[in-house]
């Protein structure tokens, strides 16, 4: 049982967890259950990223997605205490129109994968460079063929994040014209 075999077995385990948790997100009733399923998907995907030699992205997946983004989401779910919200149905009639694009995309993908000519499948390159911090930083900031391209985009993403923070604070504030709002039982957000 060589390394490839073990990697394949691990891939099936991670893929099964990811797919089942994705279905759990779709079908779960309470947002907390959905968030937990989504965290399961993300952690399993992080394992898949490790298997395809992308350790940096696997780390970021756990740190940023499962750590920061999902923490924020779970925190907001708990702050809103949406368990009281029983008026929102799971699905409704308008959701039926959503089946159409999803099924169409799924059928298209199945058609592509089933009708695939085995000889035309692009082979994986075992010698491809690992996606570790050094290689990624060289691509991002290194002087080479794409001088400045990724670095400028990196700066732009920083600006986008800053804008998002300011926008989120402005949106979540209760009254824009009252800088110091009195502390209530609910807590001042």
């Amino acid at each position, binding site marked *: 049982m060589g*390394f490839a075999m073990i990697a394949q077995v691990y891939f099936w385990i991670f893929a099964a967890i990811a797919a089942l948790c994705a279905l759990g997100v779709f079908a779960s009733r309470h947002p907390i259950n959905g968030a937990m399923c989504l965290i399961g998907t993300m952690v399993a995907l992080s394992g898949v990223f490790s298997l395809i030699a992308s350790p940096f*992205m696997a780390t970021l997946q756990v740190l940023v997605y499962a750590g920061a983004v999902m923490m924020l989401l779970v925190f907001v779910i708990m702050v809103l205490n949406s368990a009281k919200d029983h008026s929102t*149905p799971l*699905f409704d009639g308008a959701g039926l129109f959503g089946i159409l694009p999803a099924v169409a995309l*799924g059928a298209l*993908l199945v058609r592509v994968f089933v009708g695939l000519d085995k000889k035309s499948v692009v082979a*994986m390159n075992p010698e491809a*460079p690992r996606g570790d911090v050094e290689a990624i930083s060289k691509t991002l900031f290194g002087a080479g063929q794409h001088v400045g391209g990724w670095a400028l985009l990196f700066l732009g993403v920083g600006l986008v994040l800053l804008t998002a923070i300011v926008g989120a604070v402005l949106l979540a504030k209760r009254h824009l014209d009252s800088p110091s709002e009195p502390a209530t039982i609910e807590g001042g957000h």
Partner: protein
Amino acid sequence: METIPLIQLQILSAILFVAGLATVLMRRNLFFVLMGVELMLNAANLSFLAWSRVQSGVSTMEGQVAPLFSIAIAAAEACVGLAMLLAVFRSRESLDTDAYSRMKE
């Protein structure tokens, strides 16, 4: 060192993307709409990383770098989306997506 075949990775990515798309389109709860978007972004990241390791003449490190930006945009999207959700919930006391159709009021 052998690697996982590309086709299996792409199938997993497709499954996750379709699940996310169905969640966004069919669920009524705003939290689930946001989670479906995150799911679709994750599927796209997996596709990027898989394609970055195929047999080709050029170095494909770009496929390793693109998910970095995708993750950053996802963080910004979650930040603004949750703030909007808070604002809407505060005035409507509802998580129904229909609450968004009356945001101007």
